[in-house]
């Protein structure tokens, strides 16, 4: 910045300065700006490297005096042990209960969010009049902008007492715990609707008109055209949107932390409290665990697993998008 100022003031003072010299100053300024911008752009790479470095040193291979999590706990135990109890005296570090909670909640979320999001996308792209689109799209953006902590509150203050309890406890007599995976899954499902809807809609709308018209020319109804022509043609984009939404559901933190509770357990009953990987990380960090202890390192191990899962899904989504995209002229 200061260099740039010097260049400008020199330019103002010395009119008689040779053109060549002036030109080189301008060039120097251009060069400096370019370097600064390159530095900005590299910061995103530095962020990635910092994340990787953090995980390597805390979870995989520690630096000299410190040991990493997987040097203290064997990765086999981590992946196969069915108990997660880092706070107890008899410590177990089996990721399975946390993974079970995560997959259960993300699964319920997916069962709700994916079909509804896709159906909404089909409606907006194939059926809706432009006027309706103009109303619905901003509302869905608002839905996407609601912080996840608000959804968590909604789950325990409204969904569990006013929807789940009357249905399951009132009608079927099944006990519903105050914290349960079902309410967390429902709000996660609602949270991913905007993601699925907007990405799928983009994919559906990029299918050329000629395909639809060809369908109608063969005597198809609108239903046939939408579901048997347009959706298959946009399938790569739709699958990518599903993968991205699910990876978001897996990485979702505050809503599942509030609504899902914090009891890590391996269970297939969605009406009991379940701790997810993200919820464990938040709860462990709340309790002021001193750095260097095994509980503290377990935080990194869980976050590392989460990072690997979501990264794999994101990369898969990008691959699907690129590989199977039908290119229309």
């Amino acid at each position, binding site marked *: 910045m200061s260099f740039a100022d010097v260049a400008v003031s020199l330019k103002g003072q010395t009119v008689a300065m040779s053109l060549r010299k002036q030109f080189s100053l301008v060039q120097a300024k251009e060069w400096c700006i370019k370097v600064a911008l390159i530095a900005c752009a590299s910061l995103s790479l530095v962020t990635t490297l910092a994340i990787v470095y953090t995980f390597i040193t805390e979870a995989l291979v520690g630096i000299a005096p410190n040991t990493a999590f997987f040097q203290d706990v064997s990765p086999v135990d981590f992946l196969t042990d069915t108990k997660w109890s880092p706070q107890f005296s008899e410590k177990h570090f089996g990721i399975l209960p946390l993974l079970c909670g995560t997959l259960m909640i993300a699964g319920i979320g997916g069962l709700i969010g994916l079909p509804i999001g896709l159906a909404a996308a089909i409606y907006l792209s194939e*059926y809706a009049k432009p006027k309706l689109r103009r109303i619905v799209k901003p509302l869905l953006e608002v839905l996407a902008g609601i*912080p*996840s902590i608000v959804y968590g509150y909604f789950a325990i203050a409204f969904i569990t007492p006013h929807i789940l309890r009357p249905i399951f406890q009132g009608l079927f007599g099944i006990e519903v715990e105050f914290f349960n995976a079902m309410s967390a899954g429902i709000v996660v499902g609602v949270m991913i609707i905007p993601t699925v809807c907007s990405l799928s809609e983009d994919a559906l709308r990029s299918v050329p008109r000629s395909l639809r018209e060809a369908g109608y020319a063969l005597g198809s109804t609108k239903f046939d055209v939408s579901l048997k022509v347009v959706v298959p043609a946009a399938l790569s984009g739709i699958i990518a949107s599903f993968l991205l939404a699910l990876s978001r559901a897996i990485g979702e933190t505050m809503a599942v932390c509030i609504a899902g509770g914090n009891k890590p357990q391996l269970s297939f009953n969605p009406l009991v409290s379940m701790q997810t990987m993200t919820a464990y990380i938040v709860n462990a960090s709340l309790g002021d665990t001193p750095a260097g202890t095994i509980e503290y390192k377990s935080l990194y191990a869980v976050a590392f697993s989460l*990072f690997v899962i979501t990264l794999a899904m994101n990369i898969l989504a990008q691959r699907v998008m690129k590989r199977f995209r039908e290119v229309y002229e």
Partner: protein
Amino acid sequence: MNVPTDRVDAVIAPPVQSMKLHEPALVMRHRIGKVFEWTCFCSTWFGIVVLAMLLVSVTIQALSWPVKPKPTVTTSSATAKADVKPQSPPLSTAFLTSYDSRRPREAGIIAGLWGSLWLLVLVGLFAVPIGVGSALYLEEYSNEGRWKQIIQVNLSNLAGVPSIVYGILGLTAFVRMFGFFESAKTAVINLGITTIDIPLPFDRSVIAGALTLALLVLPTVIVAAQEALRAVPGSIRTASYALGATQWQTIRHQVIPAAMPGIMTGIILALSRAMGEAAPLMLIGALTYVRYCPGDIETFGDIWRDPHGLLEAPFSKFTALPLQIYNWINHPNADFHHIAAAGIVVLLVILLVMNTAAILIRHRFQKRTQW
């Protein structure tokens, strides 16, 4: 949609009524089609109906205290009297101007409001120049080479990293600074008239939280700015070059002004995301129960009275709106849940204002600039 599909539909599919009875298959197909259309229609409104339910239920809770069953045995007449006394609802002006309290009816969010405001300002200071700079480099300077591709792929991967992982990064990189400092130190910077005390590592200060959130929203800012820059037509640049402008002059005086509305919209949306984010702050250990504001600035007047607070604030411990809400939600006392609802209403109103601003900017400039 450039051509309405309805017209084609009307020509090709005649109304069901006019169809002969001996074509039951076609009638069936149209019926299925109608059912499908209605299913899709309901799905479209599902999210919005849930949104409405959410807003209504939160607002109702924010405006009323939980109904308490009448105490069967009155142990002390004093507490009974306090209950009878008419009280302001959880969401009131007192709520906005008082600190958190162990007593739900006295709890307020001023500490969270100021904490969040400080975070927003600092996140903006970090993320905006760096984000726009990155976008400028990617769109204006770099040629379609391997380097650009690497950064681009990296960006889309970073955008998908869960926010809690950024929290872990913030905890390691900013709060503990990779354990680089054996013991906590304080760097004193002398500005002549005053000094700034910078704790090293940053510990649980506002600046650690802001840096973490800045990294979190950076991909959003970059992608939004890139899209805005891409929408500026090449002819503007060519014209500027033809008049003898250098590349930076072209960018500074032509491209950035033209792309400004898009960039602003992206920035506001990114900041509103940072505003509602709780998980990373939780992880870096921001406090949930705080009875002071960063730098002891409680009102805007305090900034003029004690400007030194401005320098202290980024390095003081803090809480933020979503963290206070989380703390209240987790409280066993049901009164606090209504306080949490009041906090949520405040948070949503702030986000709504920010989002409306973004939409207005987009609309206003979309109409004006036509290439």
